């Protein structure tokens, strides 16, 4: 399988994630889109690693996953906190810079 395919796929996923960040108005979906972007990057890493014949790509993937886990935990906690304040998950509802 040529690596180009994997790269294109990865770019595609990344674009989809970005689009999600811009188009969706739901904090949780935003977070999901971010996860998609992360995974796109992971795919690229692993593919490159495979081509290079090293396993650094996979290692980096683990780190990305860890970060993703931390990000999800904190992000969701934030979402819960925000939801308590305004009964909404629309990011536009949280434009006030202080309350």
């Amino acid at each position, binding site marked *: 399988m040529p690596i180009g395919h994997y790269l294109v796929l990865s770019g595609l996923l990344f*674009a989809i994630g970005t*689009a999600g960040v811009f188009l969706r108005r739901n904090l*949780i*979906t935003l977070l*999901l889109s971010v996860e998609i972007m992360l*995974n796109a990057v992971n795919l690229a890493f692993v593919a490159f690693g495979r081509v290079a*014949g090293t*396993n650094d790509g996979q290692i980096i993937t683990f780190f990305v996953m860890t970060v993703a886990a931390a990000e999800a935990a904190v992000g969701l906690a934030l979402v*819960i906190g925000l939801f308590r304040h305004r009964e909404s998950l629309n990011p536009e509802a949280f434009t006030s810079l202080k309350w």
Partner: protein
Amino acid sequence: MGSDALLFYTFAAITVIGALLVVIQKNPVYSVLSIIAAFFGLAGLYVLLEAPFVAVVQIIIYAGAIMVLFLFVVMLLNVPREDAAEWDRSHPLYRPMAVRIGAVLAILLALELGWALSLTTGLGVGVAEGADAMSSVQKLGEVLFTKYMFAFEVTSILIIVAMVGAVVLARKREE
């Protein structure tokens, strides 16, 4: 085309469709499910890339833990389907504009990526060619605990911080 290519396209299709559904779905629960599907696709791709460990970990961590957390939150808040936009028109950068900008940028990015790929050489190199895969769990472990020791430890600190932060943030303020 070989079964390998077949598998690749199958998994790629699953992944892409899943990702698209995530963005398209209005209902967060469905979004979560679709992203899980996408992750399974990715896991398949990792297997194709001879990274079975990554594949399984992808399932365990992403699909098994992180997404359960998402689902949990979705249910806890019982988020409704995305409500129609109430746009803040008082602001010059109000959302439709933002969306347009975003769309334009997305297109730009896509073009640039395409261009970059077109410039790149050696895209035809098969992933399986060249060196054989270094993906035995033992090797991964060795590298992880020798070469990437520091990063690994830092990661653990990061996790701790994240846990504490999550607990603090989600705690009910008693006022």
